[in-house]
Structure formats: structure tokens, C-alpha cells
């Protein structure tokens, strides 16, 4: 039996024992190349962001050279194409805020309700069938949703069934339909968050004599909060950024929206119309497009950064 070779602590390098297997690896050039490709693919997302900023910023700056930023942000009259021009973006912002708000008013309760039902009450078979059907709602082209708002929700549902006096175009109809469009986003992501809550927590609650509703409201929902917040925020982003529904159904009249039965032009709706309109490219009117685009970008960015913080705060490791 050989005695142990010993190494004085702190000795520099130890030569390997005679006959010891080599531990140096073979070179793996493919590995290196592929890893660089992967890294480049990930970095591309940053390039995209930079691209967005550049493509918005140039014309937007040209615009802000002529219209002071403050006037743009605080003005309440939006009339870039009228003879008496005015570039206060608040009418567009209020319209966007209202459509978003109404959409959330519909999507958050219904989306969460559907999610809770699917995650906590439905049998697995039912969930497997219903969830994808619900997700289908998210896949319906927004153009189709837009005409649905115009030809069904406003005249039949709102005016006909509910007796609400809305015009052909209204923030209300557009917001409602947008809400329905967002339901699956919120429902599906919240449902994922809730199913990720360990079964053990539900069992623990049931074993204490809590009923299903109590378990859901007091254990599952708080535990899934970060996922639900993330879902709602994605819903908000969708609502702010949705274009076709509002372009078709909310109207094109830029006015300070104080009442959802009014019509109003949202930021995205304005961009879509302006981009397809007959204004001369490069003109001041045309460049408003980019100023509004930039504002939209900054707004969604802000909503998201806040959301990321919130999600971090509520994140729960089990």
C-alpha cells in the first residue's frame, strides 16, 4: 500500500503523478464560434431598441425644433393639419388613457375571473379545452375586432341593448372591444402564474378548513401576484399600443376626452392615419407622427420599467 503523497500547503504547482491522465481539453473552435453567434443574437435586441430610438428621434427632433416640448406635452388642442395649427398632444393622450382604462376595466376582472376559474375550479379536461379557445380570442386580427366594435358593439350592444347614447365612433366602444381583445392575454398569463403556485399550498390551506374561495383569494392569488402583475402590465401595454381597433372605432377627432361616450383620436390611431394620409412627408405635420411615436415609446417604456420593479417586489420563491 502506497503512502499518501503529500503537498506542503501553499506549494506552487504540483507536477502530476507519473502516468496521471491529462486533464487538458481539446480545443473546441465550433463551441466558441457558436457561442459568439448566440451572444450576437441576444445583443440584436439592443440593436433593435437603438434602431427604434434612432428612427423616431431624428424626425422628432426636427419637430421639436419648431414646437417647444412643453407646448407639445401640455397643450390641449391638437390640430396639426388645420389652418390654425396647434400641437398640444394631450387630446391624444387623454383618448389613449381612456381607451386603456376602459379596456382594463373589462379585461382585468374578466381576465382574472376566467383565469381563476380555469386554474382553480375547472377540471383538467375542461381547462385543456377552454384555455386554448380563449387564447384564440387573442389571435383574432385586430382589424376584425375593429369592425366588430363599429358594426356590433356600438350600434347593437351599446345603443340598442344598453341604451347608451354613443355615436358611430366612441372611446367606449373601442375601449370595450379592446378589453375583450386583452382578456385572453391577462387570463392566460395569470392562469400560468396561478398554476405555478405549488399544489402543496392549496392542500395546506384546505387542510386547515378553508374553502376553495378562501384558498384562492388568500393563498393562491397573493402567491401568484407577481405573475398577475406582469400579465396586467402586458395588457396595459397592449391597450396603449393597439392601433387598428382605435383607428377604426374610436374616431379621429382629437379632443380632450372627458366622457367615454365621446369620440377621440388616440396616439396610435393618429400615427396610423397620418402615415397613410396625404400630407407631405418631411413637413411639420408629418413629423408630428414621430413626436407622437416617441411619446408612445417612452410611455410604454415607463409602464414597463415600473412593472418590472413591481414584479420583482412581489416575486415569490417557493
Amino acid at each position, binding site marked *: 500500500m502506497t503512502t499518501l503523497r503529500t503537498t506542503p500547503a501553499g506549494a506552487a504547482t504540483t507536477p502530476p503523478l507519473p502516468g496521471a491522465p491529462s486533464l487538458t481539453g481539446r480545443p473546441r473552435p465550433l463551441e466558441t464560434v457558436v457561442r459568439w453567434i448566440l451572444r450576437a443574437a441576444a445583443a440584436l435586441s439592443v440593436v433593435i431598441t437603438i434602431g427604434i430610438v434612432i428612427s423616431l428621434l431624428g424626425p422628432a427632433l426636427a419637430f421639436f425644433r419648431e414646437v417647444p416640448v412643453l407646448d407639445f406635452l401640455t397643450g390641449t388642442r391638437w390640430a396639426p393639419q388645420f389652418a390654425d395649427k396647434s400641437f398640444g398632444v394631450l387630446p391624444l393622450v387623454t383618448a389613449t388613457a381612456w381607451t386603456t382604462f376602459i379596456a382594463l376595466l373589462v379585461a382585468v376582472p374578466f381576465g382574472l375571473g376566467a383565469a381563476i376559474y380555469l386554474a382553480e375550479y375547472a*377540471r*383538467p379536461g375542461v381547462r385543456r379545452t377552454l384555455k386554448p379557445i380563449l387564447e384564440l380570442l387573442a389571435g383574432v386580427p385586430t382589424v376584425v375586432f375593429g369592425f366588430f366594435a363599429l358594426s356590433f358593439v356600438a350600434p347593437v350592444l351599446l345603443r340598442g341593448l344598453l341604451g347608451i347614447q354613443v355615436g358611430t365612433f366612441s372611446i367606449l366602444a373601442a375601449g370595450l372591444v379592446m378589453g375583450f381583445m386583452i382578456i385572453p392575454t391577462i387570463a392566460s398569463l395569470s392562469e400560468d402564474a396561478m398554476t405555478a403556485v*405549488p399544489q*402543496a*399550498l*392549496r*392542500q*395546506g*390551506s*384546505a*387542510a*386547515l*378548513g*378553508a*374553502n376553495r374561495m*378562501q384558498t384562492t383569494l*388568500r*393563498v393562491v392569488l*397573493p*402567491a401568484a401576484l407577481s405573475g398577475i402583475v406582469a400579465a396586467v402590465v402586458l395588457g396595459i401595454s397592449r391597450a396603449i399600443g393597439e392601433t387598428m381597433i382605435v383607428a377604426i372605432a374610436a374616431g379621429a377627432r382629437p379632443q380632450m376626452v372627458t366622457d367615454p361616450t365621446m369620440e377621440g383620436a388616440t396616439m396610435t390611431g393618429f400615427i396610423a392615419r397620418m402615415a397613410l394620409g396625404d400630407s407631405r412627408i418631411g413637413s411639420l405635420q408629418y413629423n408630428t407622427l414621430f413626436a407622437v411615436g416617441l411619446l408612445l415609446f417612452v410611455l410604454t417604456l415607463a409602464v414597463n420599467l415600473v412593472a418590472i420593479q413591481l414584479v420583482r417586489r412581489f416575486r*415569490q*420563491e*417557493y
Partner: protein
Amino acid sequence: MNPTDRTLEPSVKEAPAHAAPTTAPSARWREERVTKDAPTPVLECVDVDVRYGGFVAVRDVSLPFGHNEITALIGPSGCGKSTILRSLNRMNDLVDGARVDGKVQYWGQDIYGPGVDPIEVRRRIGMVFQKPNPFPKSIYDNVAYGPRVTGMDVDSMDDLVEQTLRRAALWDEVKDKLKQSAYGLSGGQQQRLCIARTIAVEPDVILMDEPCSALDPIATLRIEELMVELRDRYTIVIVTHNMQQAARIADRTAFFTADVDETSGDRTGVLVEFDLTSKIFENPSDSRTEDYITGRFG
């Protein structure tokens, strides 16, 4: 003999490789407490079968659980110990496709009888799980959860929480951080918190499914001590893989095994033997029990 002596009685016997231990863990001390006589059954299975879908997981189990006693359920994996345990407080209701036939009597009343509220059953017959599963809430809220949801009439929740944590031998360790998340506790502390949570709703019976299998030996020891203390107020049923544990703390032990159907290959759990723990470990009536106890099983 006091409980501490009992738990400190060496559990580790000679266990050389591939040789059966010469002696099974001793449990002689327990005869002073309970007798061969049938216990007053707080809870009793009568001819219970449990099915999952079409598959019969356990068959024909009749088993009484004595008042203020600890009953251990042992047996190889898959023999249906957890299944039986869950049928004792209708937790199986929550498992898709599970069906319980037969009767489970609680103070003589069938918990599967008509008009019985499973939620009420679960409040009376609490449960502690294999992996500690505190809620993602503060320590205080974990304990207060049960009293709140069951609408218990409490004078002072603070007092109740303190008292409960004391009974669960956790108060001293957590009294300064009641408002902190329960997830900051160690595994053993979390499990004691789960026990505290369970006793906060003042159940009669506590069911425990391998409550120590995720814990280290020291934490295990503390839980065992706690169980022995709690025995004075509660009827305890514990499933364990650890035979030494059963020998150390159980008054009575039920040994289950799985019968294999020759044709279908289905394994169905059956109760082989139920007796005083000392009897099961020292002088089992059934050869299958003996084989299992001595590690000769298979």
C-alpha cells in the same frame, strides 16, 4: 420514563451490510402507556377501499385510531399509506378521480355520510405534509390563517398565535420575527410552523405524512419530541418511511404492503398487521411484517 428519554434512546442499531439487524428497534417502554386493548377510536376506517380512476390503490382497510395516541403507518413505497391518510380527512376529495368506499367514522359519525361538510371535517382533522409548506406570508399570518378562514371566535389573535407557537415549541425561535416571511425559517422550523398552523384551529386529530423526510436528523428529533408532547392533547396519525421513527414515537403501528395482481400487474395496498408498536417490531404475527422490519423484505 419521560418523553425525552424515549427519543434519545438510540435508534441506530447494528446494521452491517446485507445482514439483517440482529435486533429490531426496541419499543418496550410504550406498554406502560397503552394496552393491547382496542383504543377508544376517535377516528376509524371501516372496510375502506380507495380507487384512482379505475385502479384500486388500497383495499379493505379497517383500522381504529385511538384517542390521544400516536399511530404510525409504515410499509414500502406505493402501498397506499398516503392514500389512506388522505382519506381520513377527505383530502382525497381534491384529487381528481379519487373515490373512497367504505366508512371513515369520526366519533362514530361517517365523514363521508350525507350532509357532512368536508371543510368542517378538515378543520377537525388537520394535516401536516411531507415537505414543509408554509404560506408565502409572515409567520404570524401563517398561524392566524386557520382561525381567520374558519371564522374562529378569538379574543386576541396575538395571544392565540403566541400560545400556539409555544405549544409547537417554536415561540422562542421566532418571537422576534413574527412579521417576517415564513420562508426565512429553516426547514425544520418551517415544519414546526406548519404543525403550529394546524393546531391553531384546535383540531382533534393531526395527520402527518412523512413530516420529517425532508429534514435533517436534528430537526427530525425536535419534531419527534414535539409529537410526543402533542400526544397529550391530540390524536396523531403519522406515515413514515423511517422505521426507527415509528419505533421511537408510535403507540401503535399499522403495517401495509402492496399485493400484486398476477395478471394485470396492478399493485393494491392492503393492511397486513396492526398492533402495539412493540409487538410489531419485536414479535410480528405476519411473516411479511417481519421481513420488512428486518430489511429482508422483497
